[in-house]
């Protein structure tokens, strides 16, 4: 009996799929034709289908740095949808820090007829295919946080941090706080990532002309806290009291390095990094670490969404928006620690 029921169900399901499949494709074509004929009445409606659809491709949904960015985007887009500025948005699409997956998510934005897509690239060169795929489909793309190779040529805008400046802020903090100079180590992010390259460049800018400081090496730590902690313990072993500072490309690493130093009784070592994640901020508040350089992630998405709002009002939009970094010390940490 059950087998029969199941078989009937299966047949019914098949028929439905075929029917919906045919119906769907017919409707799609009609829709496409009619919309091409008319001129759009909605300002800023890029594809002219009378609806404003926005897409959001995240870098990932797990990093402490990206979580508040995604939350901010979700809150803002939901509000825009509620007040009728946009018709709908895709929700947070998970890029899984994987260019391949980001390209797949771009396909989905195209399938959903997006007008504007915000993307936080996973990689400078391999995520570029996601950007070009979207722009080839006529979608206006705003690249946020780090540039892909052809961002300057094809994207509507880039909103992000000035990472060279961040690197310089890191170096400046060390120069200001290690008065006698000495040896320092540099923990790098994933090699080839634009943030890693530019922050390194900023550090170099100040350190190469400074005779008081000597680098003991650049260590690829792939943004990972435990690897930076290992570098800290290794370098303390190797250089002992000569080691004065550890500069890290992000503050997950600098907080771990500082913790390793403090645990080894070397709280005099100055560790500093970029991002402003919760854990490092707490350490600054508790006096366990001197400072961290905050990258205001939500402000970057805010900048990107502001550009979309402007475009929807028919206003001119900037091609590049730089969001400044903030140096966080004990004095101002309470403003940023939620």
């Amino acid at each position, binding site marked *: 009996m059950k087998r029969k029921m199941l078989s009937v169900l299966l047949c019914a399901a*098949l028929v439905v799929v075929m029917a*919906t499949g045919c119906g769907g494709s017919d409707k799609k074509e009609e829709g496409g034709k009619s919309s091409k004929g008319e001129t759009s009445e909605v300002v800023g409606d890029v594809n002219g289908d009378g609806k404003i659809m926005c897409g959001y491709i995240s870098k990932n949904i797990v990093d402490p740095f990206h979580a508040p960015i995604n939350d901010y985007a979700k809150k803002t887009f939901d509000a825009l949808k509620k007040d009728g500025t946009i018709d709908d948005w895709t929700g947070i699409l998970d890029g899984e820090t994987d260019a391949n997956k980001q390209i797949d998510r771009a396909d989905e934005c195209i399938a959903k007829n997006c007008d504007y897509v915000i993307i936080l690239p996973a990689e400078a060169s391999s995520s570029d295919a996601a950007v070009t795929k979207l722009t080839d489909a006529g979608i206006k793309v705003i690249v946020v946080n780090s540039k892909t190779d052809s961002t300057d040529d094809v994207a509507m805008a880039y909103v992000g941090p000035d990472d060279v400046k961040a690197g310089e802020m890191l170096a400046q903090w060390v120069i200001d706080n290690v008065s006698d100079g000495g040896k320092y180590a540099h923990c790098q992010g994933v090699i080839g990532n634009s943030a890693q390259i530019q922050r390194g460049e900023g550090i170099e800018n100040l350190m190469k002309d400074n005779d008081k400081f000597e680098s003991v090496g650049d260590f690829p730590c792939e943004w990972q806290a435990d690897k930076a902690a290992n570098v800290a313990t290794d370098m303390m072993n190797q250089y002992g009291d000569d080691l004065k500072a550890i500069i890290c490309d992000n503050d997950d690493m600098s907080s771990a390095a500082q913790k390793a130093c403090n645990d080894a009784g070397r709280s005099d070592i100055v560790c500093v990094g970029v991002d402003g994640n919760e854990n490092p901020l707490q350490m600054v508040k508790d006096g366990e670490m001197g400072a961290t350089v905050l990258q205001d992630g939500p402000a970057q998405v805010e900048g990107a969404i502001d550009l979309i709002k402007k475009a929807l009002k028919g206003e001119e939009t900037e091609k590049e928006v730089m969001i400044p970094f903030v140096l966080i010390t004990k004095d101002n940490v309470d403003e940023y620690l939620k």
Partner: protein
Amino acid sequence: MAKEKEKILGMDGDKFRMFMGKYGIGVILVLMMVFISFMEPSFRSASNMINVATQVSINAMIAYGMCLAITTEGIDLSVGAQLALVSCILGQLISNKGWSIPLAILAAVLVSTLWGVINGLLISKFNMFPFVVTLSTQLIIRGLAQLISGGQAIPITDAAFKRIYSTKIAAVPFPILVLILVTVLMYLLLHWTKLGRYIFAVGDNMNAAIASGVSVIKTKTAVYAISGFLAGIAGVIFTAKTASAQSNIGIGYETDAVAACVLGGTSFAGGVATIPGVLMGIFIIGFIYNGMNLIGIDSYYQSMTKGAVIIGAVLLDMVMNKKTN
């Protein structure tokens, strides 16, 4: 209408039972498609279907290799790293050494196949656990990829190479054609050739297979070599898609491949697998990603949903099989 159908099924009851036992997962696939198209009409557009088929082509290559490995009571965890190695070899040869594209692809796929052979020999000749062998070679292979690329991303700007992913032949993207071709070849290999029967025999009962004169070494080596070869093909498609060679790609890709195999009715006890089943498993995984994004399910719930769907699908499949047997 319903009565007529019942009659037909009544006549072909045995055949139907066998079909359901093998391809019950197809019901789940169809139900899923109906559900998603109901929730989000843009899902059933032809262009979206083509998108999904193109997207799953990478996982499909890996999953077919994985399916063979699992059928011989093994597993191939090195496939994700193989993607990275192939990508880095392609990047170096095409962008930095100026090799012609076909030659570079040939070299890269040869290397990944060779690693498959090494996996196979270690597993069969020295009787090592496949899990341990491929877990270790995975590290070596990824290390090699990092060595070759120097840890840097190598952009591949050659337009002809990028076309491997984007070119269309009669409106069908090239990766789909590869997918169709490989599916047919794998079907023939597993279900129609001597090697296919040996693979089932080795997985089902190795001692019986040895007693019947099947060379376990040859069979298993062939299995892992094919897995390596297919991972190589997947690596080529992947690299053409992202137009960049990187050593950190493909991390965790073996899990989606294993999931597709399991959904497709491949048994971890060995000796049971069907290529159409695995293909359906591959599409179920693809539709989970695509469907949830189109419907707009919060990404925080997506991996939970994915896990639940896999368990649910396999459970449903087992329940149905029990009933029909």
